[in-house]
């Protein structure tokens, strides 16, 4: 039995109550004030700390199967647990790609072995992620990994025809297709196309590349009646398209990364590849639009797009460096600093975006549950006012490519609990 004493428990919306939480047998046994603590119980003093559902990340790259230089399921799970996550969805651009039952089962099994976070493999939409024919979605869905999310992330599905067929086929298992929205013919840039790219002499990707792909997929969504989730939304035009589609009743959802809320393309002056990512960091008007979309409910989830790259790969000439940033351990700190502190939205909305929103899209009813008696004990305990400075060397990830090195963030995870067992205790991984 674990007792979280005197915690500020999130009860949905912006409703927080000071309660004691009693956890037993993988569930919340009691949730009320003034719990008498039996002897032998593990009592954690949580006064001043917020208890929320464990976070769910719809978008991480764990790089396993792969070389192991950048990250593994073990190191990535540790990073996730430290970030307050109890479930993550692993993108299929591994080596070999996750486009078959064998690979997704391996990933799922390895996640369970490590036991720090639930790893849900995302299956590829096309075989080998080659963008030519459909991957074995049914096989992956019926495997022990029970895959329900599919994506070719890293690349868009290249043609309208293929995306249409994928959407139709996905309806067989009520699956969700996650799109990396970028028009395939407008790629080849290394940063946002705008004033900064004009000064730096780097080829850019216009915001319209994202907009065109989103509009294409929304039209196909209407045609096929499937389910679409837009990954790493980065533009004001994209947010407007999703907002309008939702108003028209289309089953579309979207996510935003912490780095797209915190950073603009100005960060690229100086050509530091730490800030190179796809989709690229955009100009301030887009960041403002994304924040508005978070506040008005257009955005359903914050997802990190955690993309580790070992230093020997990342630290080189800008045009040769791979795209990607770490995100698991800094997500909460960035979200609170960029959204709650300036009053864009309340802490409750951030918790919703990091837990209940993504859990709903994932379709896992054991995750993202507002704490209540009987609910599965997948929880995170966080200090929402803790100010801390990011030290890349202190991160649990096997890589160091965080764009927030040396930056002060607000909000830090203290404990994380997966099915009633502490995976992180006082900021350290327990196993």
């Amino acid at each position, binding site marked *: 039995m674990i007792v979280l004493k005197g915690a500020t428990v999130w009860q949905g919306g912006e409703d927080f109550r000071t309660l004691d939480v009693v956890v037993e047998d993988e569930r919340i046994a009691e949730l009320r004030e003034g719990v008498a603590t039996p002897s032998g119980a593990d009592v954690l003093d949580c006064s001043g700390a917020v208890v929320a559902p464990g976070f769910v990340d719809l978008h991480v790259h764990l790089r396993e199967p792969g070389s192991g230089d950048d990250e593994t399921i073990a190191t990535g799970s540790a990073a996730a647990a430290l970030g307050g996550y109890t479930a993550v969805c692993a993108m299929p651009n591994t080596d070999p790609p996750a486009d078959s039952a064998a690979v997704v089962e391996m990933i799922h099994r390895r996640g369970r072995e490590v036991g720090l976070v639930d790893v849900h493999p995302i299956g590829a939409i096309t075989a080998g992620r080659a963008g030519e024919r459909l991957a074995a979605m049914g096989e992956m869905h019926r495997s022990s990994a029970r895959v329900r999310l599919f994506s070719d992330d890293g690349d868009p599905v290249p043609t309208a025809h293929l995306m249409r067929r994928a959407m139709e086929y996905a309806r067989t298992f009520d699956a969700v297709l996650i799109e990396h929205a970028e028009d395939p013919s407008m790629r080849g840039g290394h940063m946002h*196309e*705008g*004033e900064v790219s004009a000064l730096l*002499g780097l080829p850019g990707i216009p915001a319209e590349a994202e907009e065109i792909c989103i509009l294409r997929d929304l039209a196909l969504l209407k045609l096929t009646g499937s389910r679409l989730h837009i990954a790493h939304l980065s533009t004001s035009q994209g947010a407007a398209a999703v907002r309008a589609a939702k108003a028209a009743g289309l089953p579309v959802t979207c996510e935003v990364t912490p780095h797209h809320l915190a950073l603009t393309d100005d960060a690229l002056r*100086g050509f*530091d590849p730490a800030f190179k990512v796809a989709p690229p960091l955009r100009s301030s008007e887009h960041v403002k639009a994304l924040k508005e979309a978070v506040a008005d409910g257009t955005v359903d989830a914050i997802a990190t797009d955690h993309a580790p790259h070992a230093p020997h790969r990342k630290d080189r000439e800008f*045009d040769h460096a791979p795209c990607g940033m770490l995100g698991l351990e800094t997500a909460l700190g960035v979200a609170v600093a960029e959204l709650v502190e300036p009053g864009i939205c309340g802490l409750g909305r951030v918790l919703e975006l990091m837990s209940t929103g993504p859990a709903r899209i994932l379709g896992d009813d054991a995750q993202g549950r507002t704490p209540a008696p009987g609910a599965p004990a997948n929880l995170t305990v966080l200090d929402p006012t803790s100010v801390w400075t990011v030290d890349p060397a202190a991160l649990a990830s096997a890589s160091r490519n965080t764009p927030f090195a040396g930056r002060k963030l607000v909000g830090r995870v203290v404990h994380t609990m997966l099915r009633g067992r502490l995976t992180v205790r006082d900021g350290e991984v327990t196993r």
Partner: protein
Amino acid sequence: MSRPERRHLLSITDLERDELEDVLRNAEGFEEIGARPIKKVPTLRGRTVVNLFYENSTRTRVSFEIAAKRLSADVVNVAAAASSVAKGESLRDTARTLLAMGADAIVLRHPSAGAPDLLARSVDATVINAGDGAHEHPTQAALDLYTVRRRLGTLEGLRVGIVGDIAHSRVARSVTLGFRRMGASVTVVGPPTMIPLGVSALGCDVSHDLDAVLPTLDVLYLLRLQRERHMEALIPSEREFVALYGVDSRRVEALPDHAVILHPGPMNRGVEISWDAAESGRTLIVDQVSAGVAVRMSLLYHLLGQSPAAEVAS
């Protein structure tokens, strides 16, 4: 005691206006040295300048080499092949090796924009950008400013037109920013496909009509047209580009009498400039080249004159 901060020249904007004034003024003194029987002064004796060129360029490399040697610095030329970049040989590691051998300054030409910035972050040596991808070529801009001022007497209030593939030209970027810094106004001219989307960040005007702009200019600056550009749907063909933006004798006539023509070289005769226009006597291309050594001497003097290794008495 204080250590002076190490200076780099990664962009022409690294020099404030008064610094650029100093560099241009001192360049006159350095030009005089080239007229002496002994073309050498001991100013940078004991310093080592490394030319690290990942792109072929005899003209720029030789210009830097002569400049450094006339200042009595030791010069090392390293011609790293661009293929070593593809092989993954780290620029950082190459530079550290050079530093360990005593390099005080590294002059870098590289096909990747931002490579000099990476170098400046990685090693404790003065880094001079001799051209990085499509980003900047600051020493070219400096010698162009010197050449124009020597001929026209001033830079303040001049009207400069730069013609060609602005979006992909490091020379266009540095020259635009450099002339603006010295109080001139700049108009970039080319088809919209070759003008960057965010061009307003450069602080220049934009025109797509060369003939309308020519009579207003004091300086006409022509860029080389890279032959492969029509493959990227930027222009339908070279022939069409020449018709719309190529400078021939007729267009030279349309310039005011005092106006001068510059080109960073080498010229594509028959493309951005016709044979007759190149022979018209209005071009300052030879002056540009001879200015190159004096201006590069002045820049080396400005950047290396103070040694961060020395301690300045308070």
